[in-house]
């Protein structure tokens, strides 16, 4: 999928990685990540957003860059929605990220990425608790849009990290449900005596449910269970070893990649998604070992990402209150 390399270049990169001690072109150890930079709140018209780069030198470009933003829409449960809300993810790739691909190939690529991200994140087990507005009537549809602005390898991990950051940043507006009921007097207009307490009364209670927005100083409350949004880790397999965070060249020289998405919550760790990318065969032992190692790496990513996200929360809230105080 990435750039094309000659056989000689591929074997050179592979030999470097498998060698003892291992050598990578940028001098990293096998399980080192490039620098990851993250900023939340980058799209002012969205409910939550994040920009994430892997391996970008300051003002120098050359890394993987992903932009993620969420937008909430009100949806009628009876028409198209699901009671309790739903999440739809979509990935678009800027042609600038893949300048060598034709538009057809680009479309296929973004479809693949959309499938992986959407199937993992829209699963009911991860659905936030506060996407419902009026039970059985109205709910929020959360659209998560990811844009790949440039790809210098390891785009899947970047996508999941950016998605997690944008979802973490998402604020759901507070709503008040309002219910209108027809007055009881109208119902016995015929002058008949009606016992209101009767359990056998099967006539429909005419009621309409709607909602209003709470007038409050902030934009709303964060998504419920936001700790649980998964992080992914891609193990690049060159038997007998694996390494992390491949650059574009290394990706092209690696026959097989094992992508895993882990969700960490107080109740325990769960594997939310797994893909084998590339062609080749994989024995069960490698997969088993891979999951064990993957969980370890994912936990490190999760801890680091959480620290950064909390940092961003503080930065933005303090900045906001400082600005407000200066008015």
């Amino acid at each position, binding site marked *: 999928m990435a750039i094309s390399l000659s056989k000689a270049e591929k074997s050179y990169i592979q030999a470097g990685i498998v060698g003892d001690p291992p050598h990578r072109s940028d001098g990293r150890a096998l399980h080192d990540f490039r620098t990851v930079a993250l900023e939340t709140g980058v*799209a*002012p*018209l*969205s409910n939550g*957003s994040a920009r994430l780069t892997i391996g970008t030198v300051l*003002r*120098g*470009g*050359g*890394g993987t*860059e992903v*932009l993620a*933003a*969420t*937008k909430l*829409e009100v949806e009628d449960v009876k028409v198209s929605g699901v009671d309790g809300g739903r999440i739809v993810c*979509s990935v*678009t790739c*800027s*042609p*600038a*990220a893949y*300048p*060598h691909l*034709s*538009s057809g190939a680009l*479309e296929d690529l973004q479809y693949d990425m959309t499938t992986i991200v959407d199937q993992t994140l829209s699963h009911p087990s991860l659905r936030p608790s506060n996407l419902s507005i009026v039970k059985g009537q109205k709910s929020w549809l959360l*659209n998560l*849009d990811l*844009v790949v*602005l*440039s*790809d*210098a390898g390891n785009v899947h991990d970047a996508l999941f990290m950016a998605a997690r950051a944008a979802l973490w940043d998402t604020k759901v507006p507070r709503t008040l449900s309002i219910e209108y009921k027809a007055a009881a007097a109208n119902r016995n207009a015929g002058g008949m005596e009606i016992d209101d307490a009767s359990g056998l009364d099967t006539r429909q209670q005419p009621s309409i449910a709607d909602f209003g927005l709470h007038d409050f100083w902030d934009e709303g409350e964060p998504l419920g269970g936001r700790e649980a949004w998964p992080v992914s880790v891609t193990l690049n397999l060159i038997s007998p070893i694996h390494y992390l965070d491949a650059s574009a060249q290394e990706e092209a020289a690696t026959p097989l990649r094992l992508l895993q998405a882990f969700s960490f919550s107080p109740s325990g760790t769960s594997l939310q998604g797994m893909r084998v990318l590339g062609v080749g065969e994989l024995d069960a032992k490698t997969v088993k070992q891979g999951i064990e190692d993957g969980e370890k790496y994912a936990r490190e990513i999760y801890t680091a990402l959480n620290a950064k996200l909390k940092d961003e929360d503080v930065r933005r809230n303090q900045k906001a209150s400082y600005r407000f105080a200066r008015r």
Partner: protein
Amino acid sequence: MGSRVEILNEGGFRSDGRRQYELREVTIDLSQQGQADGAAVITHGLTRVMVSVFGPREAKSRSQTIHDRANINVEVAISPFSAGERRKRSRGDKRILEMAATIKSTFEPVVQTTLYPRSQIDVFVQVLQQDGGVLQACINATTLALVNAGIPLLDFVCAVSGGVYSTSPMLDLSLLEENDLPNLTVAVMPKTGKFTLATMETRLHVDRFEDIFKLVCSASQALHQEMKDAVRVRTTSLVTAMGTIQSNVGGDMMMDES
């Protein structure tokens, strides 16, 4: 609708606090983006556009080559979260194709395509935020990205939008104003004073056209200065960086000799 927003109040201020002929704040970022040969991010107020330029290079398909000049290929993508209402436009969307065609025809007379026969210049436009004046932002960012990529141009192309409220002309409309007022976008080559684009999607009284048009042309001079300064800062920083590398290399060689 009692609480209707006033486009231009009695004090001569617009809804966002600007004066009639005031442009929104422009910021230009010419730093490297990904693998692009030249890139630019421009913001006009809350409108934000990123353009990456690749080329001149060999065309992906043979059919796209022209035997005596370079082909300019423009692709526009609008981020679904860039507007107030989420809307996902696919690559084949008519609106997007039209915008790409407009940008292409704006730059065809300016880029010296005859210098690169049988090659292709790719211009990828990514709209990140929209608040009125998307086309002008796209054109200005494309100019800067082309300059940044070192592609020979006859002149800068500076685009500004203008509209008219009752009888008073206004510059650089925001989305709110754009929805309510007749408006046009003009792309000017500031040195020669020629223009390569004048487009309008609304109806405008003939008598008002000249006023706005002249106003927009003079506004483009101000924008030209802004863009020129940004390019100068970027080039100076590159030259300085190259200077340090060269003097380092020179120093090493001196050491070797001694």
